[in-house]
């Protein structure tokens, strides 16, 4: 026979459970801890494991006021000048080197341009460093370099310095590329992931997950045929149009690369201590990406993009920002996907298609090989 607990016991049990749930909520908002003894592929996924590594090793050691913001680019002025510069760097280790919609070279140029653009800067100069593996075909290298120059020409930036190293066969994966970039900051107001305010509207410039799925499908193990192409593109002209029309009502720009839209929004929610509510049905996802995600058990919102941006704007500027994005070739499918709320801070949640509600967490560390 079951003994029914007294109401006090029941209340105490309930309190204990509620405290636990509150602890989980705190833990989610919390600092990142690095417990691993070795680097695993998860540390490169762009999700939580990557944050654990950055906050466990790099950030505390290198700590300085410019770095501590942990934004895509550092922004600073030179003595006596009222010009602000943005400075960033990124490495590219994608496999395969050539894929539907692009190649590693194009990606290396676009990625760094986009990091500068997200800081509200106009990209000016890039560097390019190559780590080449013994035996790598020169013809492939020519193709990659030509693609980089083409991408730089199209974007109106110049590659002005560089470096080359060669490693023994088996010590690299064909070619790794690092690019750094300098840009001139146009936005002269607070713009970044700490600047979200309750009431703001979140816009996404186009469909989610194209790049990551294109790369995954390019790997031989998956025999899925789709028309999905990488979305790799330089976003600085789209950003320039937004800065011009929306001005100070633009609060944050972020390109949802590794870890996807979910991770980028979680970073913003944590940095600004706000909640972000999304409407799943409003988020554009191409049928090919959606289909591949259904088959592979992936969430398009945690898949990488290389030519999309998230813009957070004051609510009165949302319609205008949407119109500006849709008028730009890279923002034709732009959509308002959610809004910023005060409570509960640090959390991103999603109203699902079926009408349910759930938390949308950061990518935790996928078992999939690197994709950008």
């Amino acid at each position: 026979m079951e003994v029914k607990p007294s109401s006090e016991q029941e209340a105490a049990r309930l309190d204990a459970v509620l405290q636990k749930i509150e602890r989980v909520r705190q833990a989610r908002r919390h600092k990142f801890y690095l417990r691993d003894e070795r680097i695993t592929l998860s540390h490169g996924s762009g999700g939580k494991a990557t944050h654990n590594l950055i906050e466990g090793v790099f950030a505390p050691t290198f700590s300085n006021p410019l770095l501590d913001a942990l934004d895509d680019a550092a922004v600073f002025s030179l003595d006596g000048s009222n010009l602000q510069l943005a400075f960033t760097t990124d490495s590219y280790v994608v496999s395969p080197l050539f894929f539907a919609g692009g190649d590693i070279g194009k990606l290396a140029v676009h990625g760094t341009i986009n990091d500068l653009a997200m800081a509200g800067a106009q990209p000016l100069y890039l560097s390019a460093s190559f780590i080449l593996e013994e035996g790598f075909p020169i013809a492939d290298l020519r193709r990659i370099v030509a693609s980089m120059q083409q991408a730089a020409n199209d974007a109106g930036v110049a590659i002005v310095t560089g470096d080359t190293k060669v490693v023994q066969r088996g010590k690299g994966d064909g070619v790794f590329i690092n690019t750094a970039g300098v840009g001139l900051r146009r936005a002269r107001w607070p713009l970044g992931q700490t600047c979200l305010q309750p009431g703001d509207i979140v816009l996404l410039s186009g469909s989610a997950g194209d790049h990551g799925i294109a790369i995954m499908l390019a790997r031989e193990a998956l025999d899925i045929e789709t028309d999905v192409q990488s979305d790799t593109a330089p976003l600085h002209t789209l950003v320039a149009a937004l800065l011009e029309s929306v001005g100070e009502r633009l609060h944050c720009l972020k390109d949802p690369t590794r870890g996807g839209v979910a991770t980028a929004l979680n970073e913003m929610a944590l940095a600004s201590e706000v909640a972000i509510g999304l409407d799943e049905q409003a988020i554009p996802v191409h049928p090919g990406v959606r289909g591949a995600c259904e088959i592979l058990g992936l969430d398009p919102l945690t898949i990488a993009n290389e030519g999309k941006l998230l813009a957070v704007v004051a609510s009165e500027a949302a319609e205008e920002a949407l119109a500006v994005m849709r008028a730009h070739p890279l923002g034709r499918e732009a959509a308002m996907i959610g809004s910023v709320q005060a409570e509960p801070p640090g959390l991103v949640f999603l109203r699902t298609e079926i009408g349910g509600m759930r938390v949308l967490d950061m990518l935790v560390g996928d078992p999939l090989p690197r994709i950008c």
Partner: protein
Amino acid sequence: MKFVDEYRDPELAKRIAAEIARLSDGRPLKFMEVCGGHTHTIYKHGIEDVLPRSIDLVHGPGCPVCVLPMGRIDDAIAIARTDGVIFTTFGDMMRVPGSKGSLLDAKADGADVRFVYSPLDALKLARQHPERQVVFFAIGFETTAPSTAVTLLRAKAEGIKNFSVFCNHVTIIPAIKAILDSPDLRLDGFIGPGHVSMVIGMRPYTFIARDHHKPVVIAGFEPLDIIQAVYMLVKQISEGRAEVENQYTRVVRPEGNVRALEAMARTMELRPFFEWRGLGFITHSALKLRSEFADWDAELRYEVPGLRVADPKACQCGEVLKGVIKPWECKVFGTACTPETPIGTCMVSPEGACAAYYNYGRFSMAAERDHLRSLSQTP
């Protein structure tokens, strides 16, 4: 998108949920799903949010990753560390901790561990690398066992000798039996696994209705599939019936898939007993390779520690799997045990009840509190 959107219609969901509320008339009901895919769908789409609060979904031992005991993972890691071996596994097995680290750690340490989407991909690797030994880490219920069987048949037919299978396939019916025999059981019915039933058919579940008087509804994996299955369960209860019904008629045949069962029977046989994480040893609950396939049996080919490793003391995966406690009632949930640092396997796979709850848990503290209060008021 065709074949997806039809199963996610919010208006229809609302209508069925209202009908469930009417039929159940506020009576609290607990249903267990015994398929990790269902657990994942329930959390991913926030289905508990759509259903009336009186309906409680309990997430049973349906995730093959979650029920694998640590000793077997240690064995897998030992094989993976053997010289010359390419060890292949499904992706979500990579992060599951054994007693000394996971396959991902072994990989970081230098073991050649690769993830594949199918055992046939592992066989392909064996053909491409005749100088290496390729081992496939076979896990899963009757859903994945047929593809392992077909791969074994093909390896034998082609005479591929540098390929072997570390077999950990388990069968769902003995696990359900163990749960039904558990003294702390408080369930009102089962949502039957869709893909497993596609293979085994409907007949193996009849004892649940006949001997235990609990209704079973085999369901598909879209949100409306689950909601409809709950409706069918509630309807059975309101009409005083306990039967095995099939909601997933577009895939599941009453007799199952005879060819898949045949392939399994040709390559595998029941083990006398097998350990399930959290549930302990269950008789006739797992499969091993038949002696005709001894040449492809990694358990015979490699020396493995074969030790039984006790679950961490703090871990309450067993109670979670049996539905005795909710994930957040576990002592270490969300504190010592998180998706990044899992202690119990329920936290590792995204299909695990704890990981699903942690990742997709209800967002609103207020709603959580109300729900818990309503649960605690149940008689």
